[in-house]
């Protein structure tokens, strides 16, 4: 069935198709749309209308999840502009970046051996957060500058993926450490 919302994620929320995003506005419009299309609004409706409403609400949820995540928003925007994102591709990373990743991973591996592992982990997590924020700022420049900077944007997105995985590992270690402490 053709979808009512046969539009891209940005169009659903009437937002400009750019990486820079007014988060408060996105949140407000998300709520506005869910209020209109959530299946709860169609609780006593016929089957067809309920089905359409579930599809709409699911699509609104999906669009919201993608746009609010800095990495997924970047990937989506690149895809919209006709770039093919491929995990296998683009393995020829900048050696300096790879070296830095190896060092961060080593630091993560050594956290347990430090006198206060939770403090050491928090410092590392802050460092990772800051570097991620820098990448995000660079990606905004590359995607919104108007020039054809897709190549650079692809590299930045790939780097953000590295950091996202690193952040997941930090969180997993934090949970383990806390479990052992209490």
């Amino acid at each position, binding site marked *: 069935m053709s979808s009512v919302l046969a539009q891209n994620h940005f169009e659903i929320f009437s937002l400009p198709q750019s990486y820079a995003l007014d988060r408060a506005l996105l949140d*407000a419009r998300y709520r*506005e*749309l869910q*209020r209109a299309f959530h299946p709860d609004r169609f609780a006593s409706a016929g089957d067809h*209308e*309920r089905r359409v409403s579930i599809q709409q609400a699911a699509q609104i*949820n999906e669009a919201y999840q993608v746009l609010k995540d800095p990495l997924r928003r970047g990937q989506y925007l690149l895809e919209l502009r006709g770039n093919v994102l491929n995990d296998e591709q683009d393995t020829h990373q900048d050696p300096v970046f790879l070296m830095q990743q190896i060092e961060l991973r080593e630091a993560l591996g050594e956290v347990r051996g430090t006198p206060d592992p939770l403090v050491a982990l928090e410092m590392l997590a802050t460092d990772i957060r800051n570097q991620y924020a820098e990448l995000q700022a660079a990606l905004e420049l590359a995607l919104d500058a108007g020039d054809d900077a897709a190549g650079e944007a692809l590299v930045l997105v790939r780097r953000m993926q590295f950091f996202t995985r690193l952040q997941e590992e930090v969180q997993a270690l934090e949970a383990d450490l806390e479990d052992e402490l209490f």
Partner: protein
Amino acid sequence: MALLQISEPGKSTAPHQHRFAAGIDLGTTNSLVASVRSGRADTLPDEQGRHLLPSVVRYAANAAPEVGQAAKLQAAHDPLNTIISVKRFMGRGVDDILTLGSMLPYEFIASESGMPLINTAGGPRSPVQVSADILLELKRRTESTLGGDLSGVVITVPAYFDEAQRQATKDAGTLAGLKVLRLINEPTAAAVAYGLDRKADGVIAVYDLGGGTFDISILRLNQGVFEVLATAGDTALGGDDLDREIARWIMQQAGIGNAVDHALQRRLLEAACAAKEQLSEADEVELGVVLDDGSQWHGSLSRQQMNDLLEPLVRKTLAPCRRCLRDAGLRAGDITEVVMVGGSTRVPRVRSAVAEFFGREPLAEIDPDRVVAIGAAVQADMLVGNKPDEEMLLLDVIPLSLGIETMGGLTEKIVPRNTTIPVARAQEFTTFKDGQTAIALHVVQGERELVEDCRSLARFELRDIPPMTAGAARIRVTFQVDADGLLNVTAREQTSGAQAHIEVKPSYGLSDHEIESMLRASMESAGEDLQARRLREQQVEADRVLEALQAALQQDGDRLLDSQERAAIETAAQALREVRNGADHQAIRRAVEAVEAASATYVERRMNASIQRAMAGHGVDEFK
């Protein structure tokens, strides 16, 4: 009434008729029903003025099921045929149930579909049927109190319930002849009862000390969206343990040994429970128990003494609280509200311990036994359309990841836990043999890597795939989770556009067909005329559809439809009007479906127009 619902905010499209709705707390020990009357949500008592309905059903030979207090009184005499705590069996297989504990007196047999059945004198009963009997009792109570048929209900489920348990709960509602508008999480319902949904943001801890279980949930309220961040608990710790602790103290004081018969044990527990309740208000109570030799023991218990007795148990609830905070990635200081649920949270020491732990006074103004049902009633009232201007929006998340089995018994996650629902995810599959026309899918729920560590939800078989060379078919399978957390799977072969036929084998559930035949059987035994009931239902449905269509056409029919499209809709509507007063309920249903099919495009255009209206004035230009 969907066609009518799309309207300018604040502009009502039709005169509204009040509909009866109820919220049901289907509990392990007790169940309750609540409804909004004259703008106030409250639980409904039975004729004797009792609000709590014990979740106990007895099936004697050749008799209607006994539900509630009457059945509970028989539990000791007739344990094999008196089903208690059936909630623990919902959505579970026989093997799961046997691991619950060796204490179960029931004789379980597995049905063909893997659904466990309990052998009773009244015949084999599935957990869904037992729950349906409890719901039916609450339905009767509600309809006689409100004086009319229920339009729909909201049933609460624990936040950690998986898809199979939710589906079983919804099936029980259907089997009881209820229209289940929504399943909502118990902690969410408690938060709604306190109107916390009206606050902008916050982190809410819901501390639920029930009769036999303890649950702690942490919810985040973010711009009207309730998200369950984490849940923890102890399935073997509850208010009953508090009573046992006090009973043990009485036994010590009265010099009674451990060998007490059932009747004395019962008297001791009753005295303990009464003392516990009185000490919520009083500083000291007098106790009296008739002993086996006919003599009477008298004593007194102070609140301080009781606090000391209960301290170890109260402490035991704080460990899951700590774990839950950690899972949510929060500290006690991040909690902005604490909500108390369950009768045992009336105990002052429980309240003060919770207040100390979270560093704030818990909300306890609403009766903690009734707060979940009350929240569900508020939501039900809104869902049937009694509050057209209400802004509340409850968005839930899926509590456990949904995945499929891949090569080597591994799971591949399709919808990760904590994703806001409804959600739809599509995945492409192909054939690995020439001419292959079927593919089997195994859907599981859980966080673990191995399929065997997750809960099996259902096996799907995609059939009627057009024969092609291996790898040429591209079957797009869409996994959709609705607002209740229930799964629906559809599949389409991409190159040919053929809709693959899906056969669902729920791992422990009932097929739609089984529910239908059980519904038929239960109505026949209740002496109801199924035909008459079906006809009545279809006539109501026909009237609803026609009324909604008429209002919609008046509003924007000229704008959104050309004359040919409009004529097609009018023709279908006229055909429906003609069969409406006949006696053939199937003909009415077919005519209703024809109207819905004829107006499908119209419905979508109205939705589209409504989006544009919602976003009107939000031009992209304004941000440049």
